[in-house]
């Protein structure tokens, strides 16, 4: 089991610094892609009211396989990806985005210059307290 002790070597490092290191790694990009695909499939299933069993039936696979897809554990082929898109009534559109363009997109989202994306100082510069009177505020009350 991983305990609190396992993380103590990072004591001196800042969370934002480590986050930036992780975000620049190849494995993070892979996880993002896994997460994006599985979330998009989950959203499409919810919108079209398709159950796991129904999707499994359409794909001619087991229900457990659909769970694996939604968890992001399935390392499926491009053929399966196209098949998934078709059974969900979609076309799969892969897009290669150059890194500099990607930084501009991130910068626009964060409202900073592209050179500052990924800097640990960014947090302090862009942080502003969130207002409390948002109409959505009651939405996630549990």
């Amino acid at each position: 089991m991983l305990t609190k002790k396992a993380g103590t070597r990072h004591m001196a490092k800042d969370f934002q610094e480590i986050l930036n290191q992780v975000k620049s790694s190849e494995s993070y990009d892979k996880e993002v892609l896994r997460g994006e695909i599985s979330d998009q499939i989950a959203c499409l299933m919810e919108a079209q009211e398709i159950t796991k069993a129904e999707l499994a039936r359409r794909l001619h696979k087991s229900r457990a396989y659909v769970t694996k897809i939604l968890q992001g554990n399935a390392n499926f082929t491009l053929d399966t990806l196209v098949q998934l898109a078709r059974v969900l009534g979609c076309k799969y559109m892969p897009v290669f985005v150059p890194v500099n363009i990607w930084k501009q997109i991130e910068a626009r989202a964060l409202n900073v210059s592209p050179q500052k994306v990924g800097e640990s100082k960014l947090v302090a510069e862009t942080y502003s307290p969130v207002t409390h009177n948002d109409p959505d505020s009651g939405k996630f009350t549990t």
Partner: protein
Amino acid sequence: MPVKVLFPHGARFVICAWRVGEEEVTATEAFIFGLIEAKNPDAESLLYELEKASNHGPSRNVEKFRYLSGTGQGLVEFKARRGSRVLAFIDADRRRIVCTHGIPKLKPRRFEREMEKAHEIRNAYLIETMEVGKYVN
């Protein structure tokens, strides 16, 4: 306030971690750092899920994010693909998601104990954030 901000500039939520006393590294951070050191891909998965929740709100995918309302009294969990989880609760008034701690894949009985621990932290947070006298005439 005994919380440390992890993702401060999200459009939907500020993601915080519960901090005990003046500790530098919170339990949530320590757990994620541990996963990074162990080269476990769950670290990337959890960081991505937390950041996404911060920017766009929690995931609609129940395999990634789940409300534990039925059993956990207002708790939520972020799940990574290999079973690691971060337990949290949502403070909708302050648009905050407060992570209590992280746990590896566990058997149900052990998980219940961890939920109790998270629930205790949630109670402590509610007491801490309660504005005394707010509703007194």
